[in-house]
């Protein structure tokens, strides 16, 4: 039975009724990754033996409650997988074997999913194009001369190329949503505190969340509901009760109020992106949703605040790479010389830039003007979203102001690269749930994504809004 283009839910159902085995699905998936990964560089590690052993085990003893039974899944390489190489896209962890599983990995495997490999990403998830990986860029399946976005570009490309039905990414300022948009698929960032960060290699701890990537909103919700849940190993993972993201998928858009921050679309947005976005808004209006204009008055500060807060946290989090307990060590004069030599050899340019920016923002004489001020402006941004979402059930924006850009186009201008995140960092700073769904193609046949942002802990409404658009616009065909 050919399962390549089946939704995850249908693969699990086919296995459950005996139409195909976990082992067959896993072998087919591994075969096509072996055959096709060279075109995309989506996978850094293929988990052949681990995946097959697990598949045979599931065939022998299928668990009763396993919504992802036998579903192949790709996992971003900044998520720890016991016994499997985990690099975070960095030379400093080039051959590191994680000694434990992230909580999201444990949850996926308990639900019957089979991890088939680890995907490429910008080093330590710092980037918007996957070009900052130490292991070469990933290419966009829609146009291999362009980036897939980032930092979860390997996971997005693996799903868009049909190598796997679903994948995990991580999203700090847009790293799931933006590559999903640029690759024409769906990606979700949960409310901050909804998914455990235990075993996610830390970048910016007040922002990092693991999120799903899938070809359909139903599969997206299916994976999100599996990884969702409290975890005593992450003190920021909230123990409160959750409404499942798949709960309201079938509900109509009628009756919802959707807010559009029109003032953000005035400049810097590609014309084709704007047209696709406006068509999506029109679709919601036709479906009976009420469209209102909202304001996010402090939006222009979102990127500077994000890059100060995230880099300050990164400069602290990445202090652990010191050549003592794991990873690369290179010799230097004495202990301090060894630290500096190891870090200078092991980190790439973007990581060095961000560590230095964060160190600067936290250093004596600059702390108040940069880090402390950024924390205060973050509160203003959070308050903007709270006001906008008091008169709307969800907000609509393009996920990215442009479609996928050519490889190399922004590598010499870090600031230009940061602007790719202009619409995604706001919900991150505010801790809100946001999903990107495909909403059309440019004249050059590149995908455009719609970002839907909801109220904190109301992820289910975001998925409902996403599913309503998807019903009107079936998943994009690449050719």
């Amino acid at each position, binding site marked *: 039975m050919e399962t390549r283009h089946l939704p995850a839910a249908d693969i699990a159902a086919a296995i459950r009724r005996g139409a195909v085995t976990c082992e067959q699905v896993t072998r087919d998936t591994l075969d096509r990754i072996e055959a096709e990964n060279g075109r995309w560089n989506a996978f850094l590690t293929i988990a052949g033996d681990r995946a097959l052993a697990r598949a045979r085990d599931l065939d022998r003893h299928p668990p009763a409650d396993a919504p992802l039974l036998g579903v192949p899944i790709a996992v971003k390489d900044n998520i720890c997988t016991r016994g499997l190489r985990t690099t975070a896209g960095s030379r400093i962890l080039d051959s590191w074997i994680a000694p434990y599983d992230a909580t999201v990995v444990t949850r996926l495997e308990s639900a019957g999913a089979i991890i088939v490999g680890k995907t490429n990403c910008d080093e330590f998830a710092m980037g918007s194009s996957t070009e900052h990986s130490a292991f070469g860029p990933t290419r966009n399946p829609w146009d291999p001369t362009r980036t897939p976005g980032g930092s979860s570009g390997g996971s997005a490309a693996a799903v868009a190329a049909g190598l796997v039905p679903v994948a995990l990414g991580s999203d700090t300022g847009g790293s799931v949503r933006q590559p999903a948009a640029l690759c024409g698929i769906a990606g979700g960032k949960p409310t901050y505190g909804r998914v455990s960060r235990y075993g996610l290699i830390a970048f910016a701890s007040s922002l990092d969340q693991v999120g799903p990537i899938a070809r359909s909103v139903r599969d997206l919700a299916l994976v999100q509901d599996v990884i969702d849940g409290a975890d005593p190993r992450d003190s920021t993972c909230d*123990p409160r009760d959750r409404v499942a993201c798949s709960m309201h998928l079938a509900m109509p858009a009628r009756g919802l109020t959707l807010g559009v921050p029109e003032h953000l679309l005035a400049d810097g947005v590609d014309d084709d992106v704007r047209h696709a976005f406006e068509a999506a808004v029109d679709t919601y209006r036709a479906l009976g949703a009420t469209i209102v204009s909202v304001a996010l008055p402090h939006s222009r500060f979102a990127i500077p605040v994000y890059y100060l807060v995230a880099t300050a946290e990164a400069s602290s989090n990445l202090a652990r790479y010191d050549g*003592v307990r794991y990873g690369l060590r290179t010799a230097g004069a004495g202990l301090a010389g060894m630290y500096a030599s190891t870090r200078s050899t092991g980190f790439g340019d973007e990581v060095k*830039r961000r560590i230095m920016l964060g160190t600067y923002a936290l250093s004596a004489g600059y702390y108040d003007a940069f880090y402390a001020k950024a924390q205060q402006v973050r509160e203003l941004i959070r308050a903007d979203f709270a006001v906008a979402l008091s008169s709307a059930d969800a907000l609509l924006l393009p996920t990215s102001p442009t479609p996928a850009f050519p490889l190399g186009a922004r590598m010499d201008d870090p600031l230009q690269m940061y602007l790719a995140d202009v619409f995604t960092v706001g919900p991150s700073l505010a801790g809100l749930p946001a999903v990107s769904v495909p909403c059309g193609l440019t004249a050059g046949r590149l995908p455009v994504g719609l970002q839907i942002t909801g109220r904190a802990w109301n992820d289910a409404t975001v998925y409902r809004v996403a599913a309503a658009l998807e019903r009107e616009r079936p998943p994009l065909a690449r050719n």
Partner: protein
Amino acid sequence: MASPLSDDEVRRIAALARLDLTDAEVRRFASQLTAIVGYASTIQDADTTAIPPASPAAAAMRDDVVAPGLDRQEGLAAAPDPAREAGLFRVPKVL
């Protein structure tokens, strides 16, 4: 706008961050960081008089229960220079 970051300032920050930079890297990062810090400085325009200085986020606390952790040898498995018999990480001589 903030003043440009001098080469010496970049060297000072790099030292705080435990990074060794070549002279060429210092010049390149000085120019890039000057542009980024200049852009970041726009947050000074935001009126935050009504916002109190941020306090650390309160994390949920749980009971402190003894549970098995990483086995010592597993913990040493990825160390670049482990002293396995002693069960220790080894570092270059400090004193």
